[in-house]
């Protein structure tokens, strides 16, 4: 892959900043120009959040627009569906099957749609749906969902596994490195 657009989507506070930091560091080390665009401030308060990671020989725009994402990495089903229109025709979704009710669902003003994974597949999207929370807990912490997702994403890149591991060692605080390496492997070896 000579260039690519990755979106990381989820709910504020789920750990997308670490995922984007890890990808940014890795891709820069691999010799790409990289831009990472984040959202701070109000949107972080439990709202829908999106981070863009773009790489290539030269990256201009820091954002990804509709129909431009090679990958959507999602921490939550509804968020994967919300951003589906940003996926390229041959793009790939890597999502956790976790469901988090947004406030309109909690208050009963709206319903959480059923069967989203199947519906995204019916719409022609390639979807890896994983129980990331269980895998993260298996690795040792529910907070490692982000690295489980990155593990699965790595499966689609021709970047050697050692480079991903090195990026984890560089970015993750030392006492959590082993846990996250395990989370990465569980994600990478996931059979969809």
């Amino acid at each position, binding site marked *: 892959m000579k260039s690519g657009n990755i979106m990381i989507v989820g*709910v*504020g506070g789920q750990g997308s900043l670490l995922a984007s930091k890890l990808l*940014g*560091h890795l891709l*820069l080390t691999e010799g790409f*120009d*990289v*831009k*990472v*665009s*984040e*959202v*701070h*401030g*109000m*949107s*972080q*308060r*439990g*709202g*829908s959040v999106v981070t863009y990671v773009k790489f290539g020989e030269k*990256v*201009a*725009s*820091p*954002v990804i*627009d*509709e*129909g*431009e994402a090679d990958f959507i990495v999602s921490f939550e089903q*509804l*968020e994967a*569906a*919300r951003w*589906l*229109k*940003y*996926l*390229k*025709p041959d793009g790939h979704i890597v999502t956790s099957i976790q469901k988090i*009710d*947004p*406030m*309109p*669902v*909690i*208050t*009963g*003003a*709206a*319903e*959480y*749609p059923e069967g*989203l994974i199947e*519906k*995204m597949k019916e*719409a*022609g*999207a390639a979807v890896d749906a994983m129980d990331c929370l269980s895998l993260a807990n298996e690795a040792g912490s*529910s907070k490692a969902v982000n690295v489980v997702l990155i593990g699965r994403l790595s499966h689609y890149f021709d970047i050697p596994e050692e480079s991903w591991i090195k990026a984890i060692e560089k970015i993750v605080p030392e006492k959590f490195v082993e846990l996250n390496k395990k989370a990465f492997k569980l994600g990478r070896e996931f059979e969809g």
Partner: protein
Amino acid sequence: MKQLMLGNKAFARGLYEAGCSFVSSYPGTPSTEITEEAVKYEEIYCEWAPNEKVAMEAVFGASLAGVRAFCGMKHVGLNVAADPLYTMSYTGVHAGIVIGVADDPGMHSSQNEQDSRHHAIAAKVPMLEPSDSAETLEFVKLAFELSEKFDTPFLVKMCTRIAHSQSVVETSERVCPPVKPYEKNIAKNVMMPGNAIRRHPVIEERTKAIREWAETSDINKVEYGDKTIGIITSSTSYQYVKEVFGEDVSVLKLGMVNPLPEKLIRDFASNVTRLIVVEEGDPIIEEHCKALGLKCDGKNELPLCGEFSQNIIAEALGGELHEGRSLDVEIPVRPPIMCAGCPHRGIFYTLNKNKCVVMGDIGCYTLGAVAPLSAMDMTLCMGASVSAVHGFNKALGSEGEKKSVGIIGDSTFMHSGMTGLANIAYNESNSTVIILDNSITGMTGHQQNPTTGYNIKGDPAGKIDLEALCRAMGINRVVVVDPYDLKECDRVIKEELAAEEPSVIIARRPCALLKYVKHNTPLEVNTDKCTGCKSCMRIGCPAISMKDGKACVDKTLCVGCDVCTQMCGFGAFERKE
């Protein structure tokens, strides 16, 4: 060494490399990280000021004293600091002054979408506008040089996409100019009419000189490609144009957006067939071109509102448009919400229950307007809650006084709520003001303020006593309440609304996200006791939802604040220690 760096961090690196030694700012998304990163350099004195006006005036003092100085703020913060800015333009600087202002097109975290370039033009202060992190670092250093060369403060304008995007930078060493010895100069620094009259023509000449400099400086770059279309652009819009058109168009990229060059633009226009201005926000470059008598397209093709993106530009100007697939499913929105355990929740629930008219303010607690709390009637700008409740009550008399409150956070109260309270005390309205004291500036990501007792580095600092302050301002009724205690909140709010004199209620409990705040064991629902009455749903806690007709607590979110426990008439919320 090449590294990925956030735009705001690159800004701070630029301050460091330029030898800036004094930083005073007020936090505001998307500008906050400039100062948070600057404080990591031991060589730079940094502080959070109570507001942007104070910060800018402190910076003026530091410049007079002879050191390079910086203040940072969001776009609306520049309105607060506009007063010193417009006259600092007249005095000029001693050591260099750079002012960072971050606009928020698309309003990711703001109450309006104003374009800060208007302030630069009106104040006659030059403004640079970078388009990525590397340029940010470079422009900040250049701005200090130019500030001293042309004897003027310099604005560096960021926007959300530049401030909060990481791109590649290369750093270099700090070069710190020696402190310039202080010089008394009444004619230049004391802006009374007799002196200011002499300064104004100097400023007009200065603008001409800077414009002349900008005509040939490589801060403004011409990139010729196909000359059928020529685009004048700047900032993040430049990146979108490059993304869509690459080398297929010619581009004049402006790094200095005030003053705008004339000859450079005329030359560029004469070399292309169709001239288009691509700028987010207002048509400032476009109107400049039109004033030069040039025919150009701009806001007739492109939106005035919101952020641009590559698709918006492609659609308007005939580039390749990407389309995604859609899902035939109604996707519920996911707006930002008050966190589980947020101490603001109990107060807003009580205000809603008592059908109060609530004058809101700027902070996390603006989320009190969101259903099911829906306890806010207006939000305008920092401090407006306190001033507006006074006006409301003066206009309606006791009819207003018995049901209306102004509600404001601790940091916002220090920023600009105090003067409103002075008005209540002085002009005597029986207004009730609620200060939500969560011991931190919350929304912008936990910055210290004058009421917390800590400085920007987290070291002990001067601490303003809110109760003593309100009493000293002439408010006799000052009551402190724990917002987790719903009965007490209800009692106090009813009592203070009924009182025949002004009162301040301080709802005091630290933000639940602060690291030192200990959380209780999460609650569980006893499904035998839960009747599914949904009383607990009225507080809008994200940790509570209904599953199979019964309430259900998400243990990963619940902090055990027990506000829901007080809502339940059946004792269904239980804690297994």
